[in-house]
């Protein structure tokens, strides 16, 4: 298989991502988890932090799994936005390792901050030096460890770097409250040359009233 000897961007372990997200969510707040899978994080937010949670999922089997947990979920395709979710109905919107897969990430980010006060996003950093090497030396499209798909079948349809992400936030009037580069499965507050060295990054975002 041609993917085996290629550099695969490591994805932060689920455990780390969950902890990181939970660290930035207030107790007893209302949280909407976009692309929530089988509701693992929702369950922890509900049980450990008393949050009122809500999941959005496209897979029917995942909706059943969440209902089995006694938690609420609605079936929706994130590519179609969050039309059914009213403005400001949540405190936090979570989107983990999914942004690079939606058709219109900009619209979804704006939607997240329409329905929630703050957004928490974890995105891969395709600006990592090994990705650059892969492109430069071997002329290959980057892939990730969790999604080691070839370019023609990968769900990763956008390849953004941390620098790209910051630019977008600036352009659409969202404020980065916190940025945590994730390197070798560990999140750090500061990282020299983060756009070269981080595998992925965590962002806490909110609307920036000054930029309207």
């Amino acid at each position, binding site marked *: 298989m041609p993917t085996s000897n290629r550099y695969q961007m490591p994805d932060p372990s689920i455990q780390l991502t969950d902890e990181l997200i939970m660290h930035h969510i207030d107790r007893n707040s209302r949280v909407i988890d976009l692309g929530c899978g089988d509701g693992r994080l929702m369950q922890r937010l509900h049980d450990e932090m008393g949050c009122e949670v*809500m999941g959005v999922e496209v897979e029917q089997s995942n909706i*059943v799994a969440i209902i089995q947990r006694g938690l*609420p979920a*609605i079936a929706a395709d994130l590519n179609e936005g969050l039309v*059914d979710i009213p403005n400001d109905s949540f405190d936090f919107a979570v989107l983990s390792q999914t942004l690079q897969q939606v058709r219109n990430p900009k619209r979804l980010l704006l939607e997240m901050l329409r329905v929630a006060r703050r957004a928490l996003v974890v995105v891969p950093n395709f600006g990592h030096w090994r990705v650059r090497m892969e492109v430069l030396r071997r002329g290959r499209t980057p892939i990730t460890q969790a999604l080691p798909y070839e370019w023609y079948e990968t769900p990763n349809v956008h390849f953004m770097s941390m620098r790209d992400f910051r630019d977008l936030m600036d352009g659409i009037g969202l404020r980065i409250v916190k940025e945590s580069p994730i390197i070798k499965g560990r999140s750090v507050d500061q990282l020299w040359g983060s756009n070269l060295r981080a595998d992925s990054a965590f962002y806490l975002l909110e609307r920036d009233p000054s930029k309207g």
Partner: protein
Amino acid sequence: MSAQDTDQDSSNDRSDEIVQTQFVDLFQPPNLLTFASGETLGPVRVAYETYGTLNKEASNAIFICHALTGDAHAAGVHSTSDRKPGWWDGFIGPSKGIDTNKYYVICANVLGGCQGTTGPGCVNPVTGTRFCLNFPFLTVRDVVTVHSELVRHLGIKQLLAVVGGSLGGMQVLEWAILFPDQLKAAVVLASAPKLSAQGIAFNAVGRRAIYADPGFANGDYYDSEGPRYGLALARMVAHITYLSEDSIELKFGRRLQDSDRFAYSMQKETEFQIESYLHYQGKRFVQRFDANSYLYLTRMMDYFDLSEGFPSLEAALAQTKARFLVASYDTDWLFPTSQSRELVSALLHVRRHVSFIELRCPFGHDSFLIDIDPLAALVSPFLERTFESTSP
């Protein structure tokens, strides 16, 4: 639709699932039922069936609301020789989606119906003659008021859940805002917070067919054959709305009824299989349904708008206390997914616990009666978790 549930196990195996329809007279004078229209009526006879056993705490009761032409016989059989089980028998029963080993299930014929509960075909105790079109004007609220009284009569303070599809789902919604403390959970299937203009349009055609039948006699037809052609025609039109393009194509296509060649004759009324099927549906319906009930119940459905009397749908749903499970079907064009989404959105607006899914099924609006497995996979854990959250 019952085409799918013909292959029952030999009914002998079901001797422990024999049920009888029971009757109770509620709203005995002077405690008359007051309709939304202001008219009063009493006593009101209610036909109902129950399955399973009510637990000591009376906390395991589930009420099933039937759709437009359903009845109290939702599950089980009436005798060992009964070839046709209840209309939702695949869904309700021992170890089924709504497990009667665990839950006590109640289903009642709606007010204004014609299968045992007081309706326009019944004799008015005051005048000694049948109500016909003098039966009080009927709304979903009135139907739910009677259901609710039945539940109280059965000694149940709070239902674990109220479950219904189509017009039954409308009753569930009305119940959740009218008697919010009486239910812990609401399951709304292939339904909507109001009937669409398209739905009203089809109902109008059905009613017109009945009115235009000379046998209708302004509703006073019980001594004669009645508007059987009109009622059959109403059913044929309605039946099309319960199917989908795909399901008609799949089941009948353009296949001919008794030949593989066209007859080229206008004397031959039934050429295609779909024609024959609709004629059969119409004919069968006339045997079991009363035209006046059909008029009242379709009009009731037209009138239904959950937000009626409130500034908005959100304000109406703010009355609710239940947790909700909403499901629609991708091929249902009578109660399209967009209407369920509108409901879900309003529920989220008032911050209710709500789960929603659009199920994929080719059978159109009738899917909720036919495609039981995916429905059971959804409803069963929803009820279970709700039940656990209330059990000590």
